[in-house]
């Protein structure tokens, strides 16, 4: 299978014109991918997620022309508050559907444009993402077609979010897209980036997104990913984040699609006073599968991290939370917590949790909690005695269960949109029962 990727790389690179550093990086990354290979069946990191689909499906890169279905899909997810909205279809920027910002404190460019013109890009590209060690990051590095580079100037306070919409078009052939998102929030700035992952129902697809996010000193970055892909649409997402002195990183990952999601956030709290709040929310049905492998590294003293993941599983779906907090020797006064809460709504659904703490410093406060259960029969009974039907009572309680995470989203239109999607999914889940 790996040889398939090698031969397709030759075809993919055929006739491309780009700087030597990128060509070299691609070549090295391909070699690393071949060396690392896809995870083996007994790989501990992939205990709960099967990669079978990637072994049998010959994914291809594919461009797409005009497509009314796709237009409608994108239009429905646009955010009125967005200061920029970049649409990427099958890994390539769709210029006609995108718009760029006018704010002087904010630069948003296609990766392809930055590659050609920006001398600082070689330092940023591949700096945070461990492309030598992780197969999907290596793959993305070797095959990246385009992406978005966001730079927030020192001290700039950007009100609206930068919205990146990733779409995979349906088609006869399984499609692969390898987009990349690079965000640099400079000292004292404040901004938010929202990524929406969509797909036209039908064909099998793989969106292999790699994010590299740098949060500068005292900067604040809000990052929200919403996946709404149809069944057979797979999302591999590697988010590498580095937070510097007193920087604040807030993330919300919401998995409301029908396909497979594997999210690997790697957050490094690199300097004193940095903080990271990682929220996760998944409402799954059918054969949907969400696997969250979170790693937060406390490298410096006095950093704070919070992980709050809430999962609702129905149908034959499977939710996985595999979170690790690593507290390095010098990271005294660390305050870290992990929370994974799960509700199972059907007999065939499954919840797996692996909240892990690796601690090498003594003056720390670390805690984790995990629960798996059903809706509280007493609470259901309470609502029913007040004349609320069983389905509605269940809906209300489930919505309340995930609300904590939803309400923390900073951008209001994005919050409304998320609430709408959660409600729609819950309705669907309850109807199916």
């Amino acid at each position, binding site marked *: 299978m790996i040889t398939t990727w090698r031969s397709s790389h030759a075809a993919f690179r055929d006739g491309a014109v780009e700087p030597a550093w990128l060509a070299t990086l691609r070549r090295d990354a391909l070699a690393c991918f071949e060396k690392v290979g896809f995870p083996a069946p007994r790989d501990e990191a992939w205990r709960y997620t099967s990669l079978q689909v990637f072994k049998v499906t010959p994914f291809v890169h594919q461009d797409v022309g005009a497509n009314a279905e796709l237009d409608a899909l994108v239009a429905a997810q646009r955010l009125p508050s967005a200061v920029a909205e970049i649409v990427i279809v099958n890994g390539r920027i769709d210029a006609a559907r995108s718009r760029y910002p006018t704010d002087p404190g904010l630069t948003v460019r296609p990766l392809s444009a930055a590659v050609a013109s920006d001398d600082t890009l070689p330092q940023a590209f591949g700096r945070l993402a461990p492309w030598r060690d992780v197969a999907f990051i290596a793959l993305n590095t070797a095959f990246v077609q385009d992406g978005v580079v966001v730079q927030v100037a020192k001290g700039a306070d950007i009100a609206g979010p930068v919205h990146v919409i990733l779409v995979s078009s349906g088609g006869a052939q399984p499609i692969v897209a390898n987009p990349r998102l690079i965000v640099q929030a400079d000292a004292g700035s404040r901004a938010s980036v929202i990524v929406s992952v969509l797909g036209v129902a039908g064909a099998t697809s793989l969106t292999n997104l790699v994010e590299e996010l740098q949060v500068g000193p005292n900067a604040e970055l809000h990052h929200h990913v919403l996946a709404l892909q149809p069944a057979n649409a797979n999302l591999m997402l590697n988010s590498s984040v580095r937070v510097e002195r007193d920087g604040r990183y807030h993330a919300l990952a919401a998995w409301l699609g029908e396909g497979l999601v594997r999210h690997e956030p790697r957050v490094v709290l690199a300097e004193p006073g940095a903080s990271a709040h990682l929220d996760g929310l998944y409402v799954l049905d059918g054969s949907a599968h969400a696997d969250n492998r979170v790693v937060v590294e406390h490298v410096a003293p006095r950093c704070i991290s919070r992980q709050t993941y809430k999962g609702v599983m129905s149908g034959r779906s499977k939710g996985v939370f595999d979170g690790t907090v690593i507290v390095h*020797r010098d990271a005294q006064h660390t305050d870290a917590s992990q929370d994974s809460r799960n509700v199972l709504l059907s007999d065939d659904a499954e919840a797996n949790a692996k909240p892990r703490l690796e601690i090498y410093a003594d003056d720390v406060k670390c805690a984790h909690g995990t629960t798996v259960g059903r809706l509280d029969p007493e609470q259901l009974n309470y609502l029913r005695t007040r004349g609320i039907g069983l389905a509605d009572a269940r809906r209300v309680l489930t919505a309340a269960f995930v609300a904590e995470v939803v309400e923390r989203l900073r951008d209001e239109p994005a919050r409304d949109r998320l609430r709408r999607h959660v409600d729609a999914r819950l309705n669907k889940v309850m109807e199916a029962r």
Partner: protein
Amino acid sequence: MSDTALEAHLNKSYEHGWVTDIESDTLPPGLDEGTVRAISARKQEPEWLLDWRLKAFRHWQTMTEPAWQKPQHEAIDYQAISYWSSPKSPTDGPKSLDEVDPKLLETYEKLGIPLAERAALAGIAVDAVFDSVSVATTFKKTLSEAGVIFSSFSEAVREHPDLIRKYLGSVVPIYDNYYAALNCAVFSDGSFVYVPKGVRCPMELSTYFRINAINTGQFERTLIVVEDGAYVSYLEGCTAPQRDKHQLHAAVVELIAEGNGQIKYSTVQNWYPGDENGRGGIYNFVTKRGICKGNGSKISWTQVETGSAITWKYPSVILKGDDTVGEFYSVAVTNNAQQADTGTKMIHLGRNTRSTIVSKGISAGRADQTYRGLVKINKKADNARNFTQCDSLLIGDKCGAHTFPYIEVKSPTATIEHEATTSKVSDEQVFYLRQRGLSTEDAVNLVVNGFCKSVFQQLPMEFAVEAQKLLAVSLEGSVG
């Protein structure tokens, strides 16, 4: 506490460290089919047991040592270990205490084993394992009147072959893991307990293990079977003399509880942990597993682990019957260069099964400690319930504490709660106690004892006292 006092403690040598000089009948180091046959022959075992050992040995040869664990150790040379060592005794074996080698008795004396009259006062029946052969068993009569079988493993093979054949390897199969397979091939001796239907074992059973001859890995096997409605409480405690070379201890413990049967298994482990640089010390790689086979049965593991250079074990319970209960209470203390990777597995298969896990880890010096556990709820395990609490306490800035719980739930009717915290003994707590006239060390001991209280409460009283002392000794000098 001042630095000098701290150093004084660190330099303090292991108080249970001595070697009893007695003649041993020892096989030369090395491991092949011949070794397995030789062990079996010396023990005059039946053909089926030899075949079973050989099957395990052949399978072991196809296996590789696991490498996923957190503790690191030098490669073990299995050919350098002597697999058989038994104290020389008259060919017929001792008939009474008078016939037992006085040096052995002296060793027991130092360990405080209530072997003679003291046993009666302590109310404990002791099956003392000195190296590999059981040399004396007390309280046989009281037990046999109740119908309880408590004997060395070899004796049970001779006298109750049907029971052994039925249950041996039924919880930990020979294919289970590397060290269990090795144990199946070369196990020397151990204990066998059988409590018949409806019998409540009249006393707490206890066995002291002691590793004595240089370069002798000890491969114990314990098999405990309680029939319908029966109950037994089994205590296991260990100390070992000081050695320079790492010694491997790969034991297997199997517990079987039939309908409404109950087994309470308690361990205080205080083997030689190695010196302050981690030289010497025991490798304690043990497979312990119980099965709640019949409906309404219960298995409870309690362990206090303060010794060994490396402790690596996961006492587990398979909750097969309906309404069964599994419990795991653990205190693990690591100091200096000690490493521990311990926890439990609770496998819920039956309906209305419940499990409780309380794990307290204390890490000091340069020690590293890991809690690793699995709670698995199968699809058919309706209304399963688990509560897990694992807390770690760090003393000193060079130690590590890690928590790796696995939670796998396939039933929507399950209720699972898992909580874990990691913290240090807070300055406020120590300050408060010092204000009231306690020394820093006493203050820390008090806080640590409070931290472990929920586990100590589960221990039989004699052990609870010993455990608290052990804890204080293990941590002495680690605060200042």
